[in-house]
């Protein structure tokens, strides 16, 4: 039925099957929008957040999602700036993923703040000292960049190509794409860092506070590193998932293993620096504020194992997997590695957001734990659903994996 919209030479499932696939996601999206409506109309008392857990599930997942979305800018960076042309095979998919991650994050943020209609004050009366101001600026600009990067992919659609001016426009866009890639890369490096800075600068939270270079605490750089290290892994993971779901070969093996290799090298560097940072923090930064750092891990579930898991199990292990050429040949290992790597960055963001708030600062206040309620979960799942739907449509009607056609015809 929607044949004329689909690229020639690639096979797509029937419209009915496609609809069947979309349906549950649409339902989830609807539920999510309902929950969001509740929060906007009745206020944030609809969530389980409280004065201690001023940041909850949403901020944690925003950070996680944005870290994973780094795949977009970093792949672009590798492709357009460092000229790793193999990555052209995944760049479109990466861009769409990035767009989904960032737009979703911004959407949730708008629900998370108590007064969304005042959010623009940050642009009108910015506080240059605030990491959050930096983040807001970069993310909004970068989201626009992503939108622009999305356009040519969109214009590749079979029907849209028929409009001559669009075709011309797309051609022009392609020429300047490296510029956008560069801008995007710069912005992203910056805001990934700022997101880390968000917590590193918290002088009043010995658990999160880190020393650093100039105005940037060490977390600034660690966040950049962890993001770009896991970004490719996430692209790898999603590509694999899509090809499993659609039962198609989408990219050549070597592309995936290249992604893995890049991810691996960056991970190993990250793990190294993270370990050093942790040691400095335990033995110097925290001590200097008169705290016994080991107490930070005195409360369940945030035991010392969290630290071990984050650095070794979900950092070192995937790195080693990715760095061994033999394992890189096996899809199973690649996927395992990516899952671990992505898990690592997610755990790191969880620790930074939730554990930071859970551990007491005053001696006479208790350790507190927090669990999201259905409104919070539903709202987020809704955004995930939005992502899946958008990606599915893009995959069906646009060209996310240029190699797909050739691989199919072979």
């Amino acid at each position, binding site marked *: 039925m929607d044949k004329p919209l689909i690229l020639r030479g690639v096979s797509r499932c029937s419209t009915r099957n496609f609809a069947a696939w979309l349906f549950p996601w649409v339902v989830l999206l609807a539920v999510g929008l309902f929950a969001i409506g509740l929060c906007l109309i009745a206020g944030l008392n609809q969530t389980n957040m409280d004065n201690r857990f001023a940041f909850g599930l949403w901020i944690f997942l925003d950070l996680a999602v944005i870290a994973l979305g780094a795949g977009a800018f970093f792949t672009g960076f590798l492709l357009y700036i460092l000229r790793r042309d193999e990555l052209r095979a995944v760049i479109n998919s990466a861009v769409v993923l990035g767009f989904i991650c960032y737009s979703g994050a911004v959407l949730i943020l708008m629900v998370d703040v108590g007064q969304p209609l005042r959010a623009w004050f940050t642009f009108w009366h910015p506080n240059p000292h605030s990491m959050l101001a930096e983040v807001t600026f970069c993310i909004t600009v970068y989201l626009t960049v992503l939108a622009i990067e999305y356009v040519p992919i969109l214009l590749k659609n079979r029907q849209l190509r028929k409009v001559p001016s669009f075709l011309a426009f797309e051609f022009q866009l392609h020429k300047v794409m490296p510029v956008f890639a560069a801008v995007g890369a710069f912005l992203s490096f910056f805001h990934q860092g700022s997101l880390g800075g968000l917590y590193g600068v918290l002088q009043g939270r010995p658990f999160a506070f880190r020393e650093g270079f100039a105005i940037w605490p060490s977390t600034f750089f660690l966040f950049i590193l962890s993001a770009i290290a896991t970004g490719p892994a996430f692209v790898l993971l999603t590509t694999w998932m899509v090809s499993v779901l659609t039962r198609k070969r989408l990219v050549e093996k070597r592309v995936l293993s290249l992604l893995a290799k890049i991810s691996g090298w960056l991970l190993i560097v990250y793990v190294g620096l993270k370990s050093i940072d942790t040691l400095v923090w335990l033995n110097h930064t925290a001590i200097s504020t008169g705290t016994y750092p080991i107490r930070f891990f005195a409360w369940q579930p945030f035991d010392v194992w969290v630290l071990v898991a984050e650095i070794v199990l979900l950092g070192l292990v995937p790195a080693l997997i990715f760095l061994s050429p033999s394992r890189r040949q096996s899809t199973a290992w690649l996927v395992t590695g990516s899952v671990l790597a992505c898990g690592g960055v997610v755990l790191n963001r969880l620790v930074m957001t939730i554990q*930071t708030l859970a551990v007491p600062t005053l001696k006479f206040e208790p350790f507190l734990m927090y669990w999201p309620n259905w409104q919070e979960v539903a709202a987020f799942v809704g955004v995930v659903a939005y992502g899946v739907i958008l990606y599915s449509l893009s995959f069906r009607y646009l060209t996310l994996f240029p190699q797909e056609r050739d691989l199919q015809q072979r």
Partner: protein
Amino acid sequence: MKRTEPKSRYGMVIDLDRCNGCGACSAACAVENNIPPAQPGVNERTGLTSMRVYRASNGRAFPDHRTVYFPVSCQHCGEKTPCVSVCPQNAVDVNPTNGVVSQVPARCLGCRYCMAACPVRARYFNWFDPEWPEGMDRTLNPDVSVRMRGVAEKCNFCHGRWQAAQAKAAAEGRREIDFADYVPACVEACPAQAIVFGDLNDAESEVAKQASGSTAFRLLERLGLDPKVYYRSERAWVRRLGDTDFAMNERQAARG
């Protein structure tokens, strides 16, 4: 946020040996600052009070058990004030003339970053729209605006009274306020006169004298935030409770 050393530094000293946790300061604060009563289902985690009194103890068993009460409001940090530096849109600032850390609900977008940044958790979020029993809004204080849902708030040393004192001074042609006209509600309400308020820069003032005393201390002093709210106690174990190390036993941890 240019930081010039303010010519006066308003601050207070709270005598913990006098405080017996009656909570009058909290109530007086709520009356002065139009803080609405709790909505049904609100608990100590979602509550709204700019002056929260914590109960702590020496952790020893009966009959050697002793309790102490910590009235904790905004500590009005002086150095790299955590909440000021993090606010993305300058809804928080430090008054250059008296060092009071302010919070402006009208500017706040409710991102709650400042709450995550505050070491003593003296910032509270308006999770609900403010509501008073029918007719009771007639008792609201006209010198303080009622905060709407979705913004952060905290103690700002009863700025309504400060502004009134300023206006009075101006009407009499003075530029300096008279501290007789400016006493925060909690200070005025304390039945034990446990709180002293004034200008810490004025060496002659009672507050400056007490703040420099050997038994005076500040909460989490070693974080280096230079708060302007001091505490004092003759009891060493009480003073230790203000320190940063988490020498906390489980029973204390269990206490709210």
